[in-house]
């Protein structure tokens, strides 16, 4: 494509400083949180308004130029990886909380609003925004919408898709469409359900209406240390089996604990083969009774030490080790892959044993951190890129772990998304017919496949005839006003 012509067209409408073409500056945007994929975009647009987004998309659409939306760039699957011949539309300037409607338990925000900022803004009213990905201090709600982000507390409170009730969408043709609102069940297809988690392939959200959740009266957190992940897993089974839905139930194995200690000195019990962090929240009377039960189940499963957070500071310390775990493995390994797979929770002990034997056979170390309540594993596969062959072996182990998840009836991703990274795994989880059917939705929204192309699906679908759409020579091209790229 002719980037300079497109840049000129965009500059004339958006102003010079909203359009970046300088190679050095473009490189700032070459990757998201999955840094080993790097592509420098042809140009970057810093969008301030829905009009700017719609105008940019329309310019892209009429030239057949791909575009990719980017929030804070914290994604771990390369979902916001730029397109070399495309426009990267940066949404992070649209960061205003437009409305907080306490009495209807909703907030209306621009997509660049940082996840945690919404909770901080509503906390004085006794409310918060429930989805809490570990990156919540920096990730944007628009990015959360694209990825259907989860977090440690989604076992009880659900994922982004359960908390979005309305969107303003810029379609891949550049039209602005309102979907849903503060009320539930808008008549018609649940397009919100299709859009949330579509990884930017169906358009760009420019305004998001979300549920606000009442802050719980009581929150209690314990840290339980076990000799082994088997014992910790048995405790999880006992807790869930007793009908308890904890706000969160997180597990780390010995290697992950070692890393966390090295990084943030969280002071977890020494010699633990596994720790569980269990959080119970709700009405005070209920929490007291349930928490006692949880403590008992941990003891019975063999916990050799149980600590109960006495205050928010201690709770924060319990969580610090867990939330820092990904970055922390950098202390014990020069390089690592963060994996994200899901298994039925009851398969946990077996899958952990299989991961351990994969690790032993290959000589590749694997640290395990996971949301135990919903079977969402985050194995951290450690390697040293400077040693020949290690990266390849680590990739193989990481892929084998995903295969284990599929074999056990699980998923190739629980919360990080497919993005650029896992499109190749999609055919292992879904048949050609399944993928073809999903792409019918893509064809309905984006028949030219210009909205974040190359993500999610390993091979694009040809969309066939498109009644009512413009075909043939564009009128401007015909008039000699614009070139066809």
């Amino acid at each position, binding site marked *: 494509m002719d980037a300079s012509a497109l840049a000129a067209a965009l500059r004339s409408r958006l102003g010079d400083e909203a359009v970046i073409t300088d190679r050095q500056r473009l490189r700032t945007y070459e990757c998201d949180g999955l840094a080993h994929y790097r592509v420098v975009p042809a140009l970057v647009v810093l969008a301030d308004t829905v009009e700017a987004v719609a105008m940019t998309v329309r310019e892209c659409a009429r030239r057949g130029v791909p575009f990719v939306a980017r929030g804070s760039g914290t994604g771990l699957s390369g979902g916001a990886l730029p397109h070399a011949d495309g426009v990267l539309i940066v949404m992070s300037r649209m960061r205003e909380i437009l409305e907080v*409607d*306490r009495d*209807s*338990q909703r907030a209306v925000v621009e997509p660049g609003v940082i996840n945690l900022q919404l909770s901080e803004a509503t906390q004085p009213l006794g409310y918060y925004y429930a989805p809490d990905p570990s990156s919540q201090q920096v990730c944007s709600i628009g990015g959360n919408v694209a990825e*259907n982000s*989860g977090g440690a507390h*989604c076992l009880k409170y659900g994922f982004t898709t359960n908390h979005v009730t309305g969107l303003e969408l810029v379609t891949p043709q550049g*039209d602005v*469409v*309102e*979907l849903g*609102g*503060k*009320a*539930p*069940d*808008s*008549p*018609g*297809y*649940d*397009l*919100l*359900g*299709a859009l949330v988690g579509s990884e930017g392939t169906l358009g760009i959200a420019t305004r998001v209406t979300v549920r606000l959740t*009442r802050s719980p009266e009581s929150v209690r957190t314990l840290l339980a240390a076990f000799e082994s992940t088997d014992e910790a897993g048995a405790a999880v*089974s006992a807790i869930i089996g007793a*009908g*308890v839905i904890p706000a969160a139930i997180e597990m780390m194995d010995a290697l992950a604990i070692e890393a966390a200690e090295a990084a943030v000195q969280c002071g977890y019990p020494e010699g633990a083969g596994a720790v569980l962090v269990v959080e119970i929240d*709700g*009405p005070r*009377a*209920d929490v007291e*009774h*349930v928490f006692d039960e949880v403590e008992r189940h941990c003891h019975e499963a063999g916990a050799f030490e149980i600590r109960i957070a006495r205050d928010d500071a201690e709770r924060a310390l319990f969580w610090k080790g867990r939330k820092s775990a990904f970055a922390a493995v950098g202390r014990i390994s020069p390089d690592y892959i963060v994996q994200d797979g*899901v*298994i*039925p*929770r*009851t398969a946990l002990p077996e899958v952990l044993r299989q991961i351990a034997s994969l690790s032993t056979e290959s000589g590749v170390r694997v640290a395990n951190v996971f949301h135990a309540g919903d079977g969402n594993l985050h194995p951290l596969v450690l390697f040293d890129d400077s040693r020949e062959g290690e990266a390849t072996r680590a990739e193989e182990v990481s892929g084998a772990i995903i295969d284990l998840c599929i074999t056990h*009836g*699980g*998923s190739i991703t*629980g*919360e990080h998304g*497919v993005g650029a990274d896992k499109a190749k795994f*999609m055919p292992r*989880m*879904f*048949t050609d*017919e*399944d993928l073809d*059917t999903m792409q*019918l*939705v893509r064809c*309905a*929204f984006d028949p030219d496949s210009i909205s974040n192309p190359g993500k*999610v699906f390993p091979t694009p679908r040809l*969309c066939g005839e498109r*009644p009512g759409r413009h075909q043939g020579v564009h009128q401007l091209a015909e008039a000699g006003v614009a070139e066809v790229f």
Partner: protein
Amino acid sequence: MGAGIEELQRACDGHVTSATEADAVLGVQPSWVASPASTQEVAALMRVAAEHDLAVLVRGTGTKLAWGNPPKRCDVVLDTRRLDTLVEHAAGDLIVVAGAGRTLERVQQDVGGSSQRLGVDPPRQGTVGGAVASGSTGPLRLRHGAVRDLVIGMTLVRADGVVAHSGGKVVKNVAGYDLGKLLTGSFGTLGVVTEVAFRLHPVPAGQRWVVADVASAQDAQAAVQDMVHSQLMASAVELDWDDGHGRVGVQIEGHADAAAGCADEARDLLGSGATHEERPPGWWDEEPQWTAALLKVTHEIAGLPRLLDAIARSEQASGLRAALRGSPAVGVGLVGLRSNTDSSGDARAGSASGDAGSAGHTGDPSGDGLADAVARFTESLRDDAASFGGSVVLLEAPTGVRERVDPWGPVSGIDLMRAVKAQFDPGRLLAPGRFVGGI
């Protein structure tokens, strides 16, 4: 079409019968009723339908067949009731996978033995497929979310007979588009759902109800807001409203030793006169009284008093009387209409036949007059919809109303919806015309 019947018989292993008048859907008479017993049979059936251009309408127990527009055409009713397998109940994983034709009641029995439940408790208890296709809603939605939030996987047969899956058997899963949500509430217009995987929840050991009378729209709002902002995290907050007053009911669930105390707190919040019960009130999870028509309304949570005022204005505009039952802390409810002369009591019209509200059910006004009145009520309430921030959908209505007023009302994003329909069902075989905008 004559050639089609033998192929249909082969597709469904002989389970195809001639349709009778009882199989008509809103006056549209199908030719055959086919009862496939497996996803493969449904796929074979849809291939025959596609080849012979047969329009197919999916039916479970038929409790909601009268909702929506009449189909533009209907050759085959696909009866799902033989698709009634319990595929899997993994109690430890809190999931269940069931055939679309299995009834909600049976699924609750399947999982109830493990002290688990499917958080779908609509007043009309048909099949799993029906609940999914119509997006059923009941009191427990406040705690467990809507049907769309509980569907974690789905098997569907496309209009061209291709079998597809989405999601899976795990709750947490972001691989690929969430077709389960798109199909949920699509009224059978995008594909034939044959199997659904749901997330389950444990049944709390402690369950209590608190009921308080509310004498005005402001009272109702105050009671609902008290519960919405309390930290008791009620499982359900229901409103039963008729003639300018009503009752708010609250379901408290939790630990066996804690629920009673929490319910006492809720009773104190709701003020003097509130009562604490060990059983749900008699009106719990029932539809409002209606003889003329039934509507679904949605609203912003805080828009409740404006909805109640709008209902009162629409009663005046139409000369009908209206009753509301709903989940105001979610923002959804059902409005039942009856003519002024109907006695209150158990006058609700049966509706499973799909021929709701022939004029004979009602007093005065009747016939055209009744249809006019229902249309006027619906339009009047829609005129006020912006004030309560929601929508008004006509579910059951007497003959003639659907010619006067669009059952679905205005729809935002209709062009995208048409594009989705055109991709999934380009030949318009699946319930053509039934859904929004005549999709």
